């Protein structure tokens, strides 16, 4: 299974290398790449939610809402209990519940999945706006720490191995999901359910059960992405906190061809483009209008997608409710 087309791969490498040489001021280069990673992580994690759901045939456009409500719960529970671990647990519970709600609507009730996802987004926006109160604080955030030895590697150390606990958890989940999807029985069954549920059913795989499990776990991953934003990256919560990341993630999922590593690469590309854009404004070496530099990540993404995306194919049974006995 190819995670990216060859052309796509060349393109990414070329852009990464260009940036590397351009910003080659050692500390600055490292800072730009570390920033790119920080921009990329919540997007990559959110894309995992999409991958887990769509691989089993459920379209989830409620990622934004899941992240938003989880970030909200993470922050306010942490604030009320003055303990960020409890906040994190509460957020993961919330995310799982939202996954479960989506599963009930999409699998049991066989609702239109776009509408089901929209319901989740509207619910999250409404609840978080209504229940939000200002002036609360949390006792601290998940602080960055260095992973011994690995963080001493030049360049890669500071970029990848000096982060907070939730970032590391996120990276591990992405790698684990890649292995799980392609190298475990669960992964094979999930993909089968997403491609041809009736065959999977004939072979003795419970389509309904697997879809329920995967969508619920995906909700928990979305919760981690949300909690990362409020408990590690920012340390607060504001209305509209996720600022569309859940939707960007869906695009990255397609860009990465429903493959966890592909989506990770796509997220890194987008995150780095944002870090480049910032750096161009910081350095002010070339006097490009800031409107252009600010739009750079989006322009780069469009260009790369148009030139190199090629043909992408979603899981065949995506978006279709499964009914026993219908092929």
């Amino acid at each position, binding site marked *: 299974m190819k995670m990216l087309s060859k052309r796509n791969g060349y393109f990414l490498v070329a852009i990464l290398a260009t940036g590397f040489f351009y910003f080659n001021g050692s*500390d*600055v280069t*490292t*800072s*730009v790449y*570390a*920033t790119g990673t*920080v*921009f990329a992580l*919540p997007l990559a994690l959110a894309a995992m939610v999409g991958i887990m759901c769509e691989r089993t045939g459920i379209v989830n456009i409620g990622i934004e809402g899941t992240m938003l409500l989880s970030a909200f719960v993470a922050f306010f529970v942490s604030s009320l209990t003055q303990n960020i671990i409890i906040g994190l647990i509460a957020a993961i519970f919330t995310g799982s519940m939202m996954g479960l709600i989506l599963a009930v609507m999409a699998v049991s009730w066989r609702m239109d999945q776009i509408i089901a996802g929209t319901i989740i987004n509207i619910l999250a926006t409404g609840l978080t*706006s209504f229940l*939000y109160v*200002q*002036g*609360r*604080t*949390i006792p601290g*955030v998940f*602080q960055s720490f260095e992973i011994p030895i690995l963080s001493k590697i030049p360049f890669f150390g500071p970029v990848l191995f000096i982060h907070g606990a939730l970032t590391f958890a996120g990276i591990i989940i992405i790698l684990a999901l890649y292995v799980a999807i392609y190298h475990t029985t669960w992964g094979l069954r999930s993909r089968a359910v997403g491609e041809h549920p009736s065959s999977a059913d004939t072979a003795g795989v419970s389509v309904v059960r697997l879809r329920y499990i995967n969508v619920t776990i995906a909700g928990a991953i979305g919760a981690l992405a949300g909690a990362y*934003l409020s408990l590690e*990256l*920012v*340390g*607060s919560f*504001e*209305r*509209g*906190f*996720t*600022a*569309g*990341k859940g939707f960007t993630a869906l695009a990255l999922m397609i860009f990465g061809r429903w493959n966890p590593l592909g989506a990770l690469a796509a997220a890194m590309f987008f995150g780095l483009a*944002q*870090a480049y*854009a*910032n*750096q161009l*404004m*910081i*350095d*002010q070496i070339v006097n490009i209008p*800031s*409107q252009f530099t*600010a*739009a750079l*990540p*989006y322009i780069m993404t469009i260009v790369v997608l148009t030139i190199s995306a090629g043909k992408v194919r979603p899981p065949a049974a995506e978006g279709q409710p499964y009914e026993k006995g219908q092929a």
Partner: protein
Amino acid sequence: MIKRISAVTAALALATVGFIVPAQAATTEADCGTAGAFCVGLVTDLGKVDDKSFNQASWDGAKAGAAKAGGFSKYIETTDSKDYAKNIALFADKGYNVIVTVGFLMGDATAAAGVKYPKIKFIGVDQFNASTATNVTGLIFDEDKAGFLAGYLAGYLTKTNKIGGVFGMKEVLPVRKFGEGFENGIAYAGKERSKKIKSTVVYHAAGDNAFSDPAWGATTANQLLTQGFDIIFGAGGSTGNGALGKVAQKAGALCIGVDIDQYYTVPEAKSCIVTSAEKKLTLGVSTLVAQAKAATIKGGNYVGEVGLSPFHDLSSKVPAVVKVRLKKITTGVLAGSVSTGFKG
């Protein structure tokens, strides 16, 4: 039955337009439009009235102005920028005397309403009023002056000689004025100290989330911090607040808030906020409301006061000689004898 249906429809229509909450009950809304009644309505920009920023400070001013005049005040929260005109009309059709509209982006809607309702006084917060209408007054501020003062102070407090800004979108004039004033203030201080200070302002991409993207603000602030910038000016709604929160996580780094004294409104950044580049929104709005009551209000534009907020907990970090210099330059900048270098 029909009555009930129309009530439900009305409620639904209201819900889509925004929530309406009365502030006080001394004069009631039913009196608005009758002789002797004085009613002030405020339409918020996108966002809530408790946004720790613009809407909140303006509403405080409107409320105070109305209360002082013995009048009635009420606000509508805008939930969609398409509803600006509709929300203004809700007040206008009920015979309100003064309508305050908050935010740069509502400028066009306010100007149009001024023409449509010539008897009502409009106060446009942060809106430069280019028309000759006598019933529309723009409450504007010299953001470049506030930014200049913040930059000047930062120029004296930096240890690494690198100062940065994390801002909302550049297309909004007040944001750009803050930015240019800030950089010029830094340069001014650098000249006085004969030091070369690097300054930079990073703007968010233009778009609906430019002022509501705290994650971008935090990440960008972090990018600056890891490159040795030790003072960061966060200006742009919750995008800027995200930056302030991030700076607070780094020991030794300082941050500067914007618009109102953010020491009180961004509690997670209390430990790093050395000052805020303040526009005295509450004072400006209440002054104009009082003028409207006294019928002394003029059209055109009213320039509100700007300045730096108190240093609060970080007062000890600002050396006495810097305080003296800041005081002197503040007088000069506000009087116009020291140019902020903003070219427009």
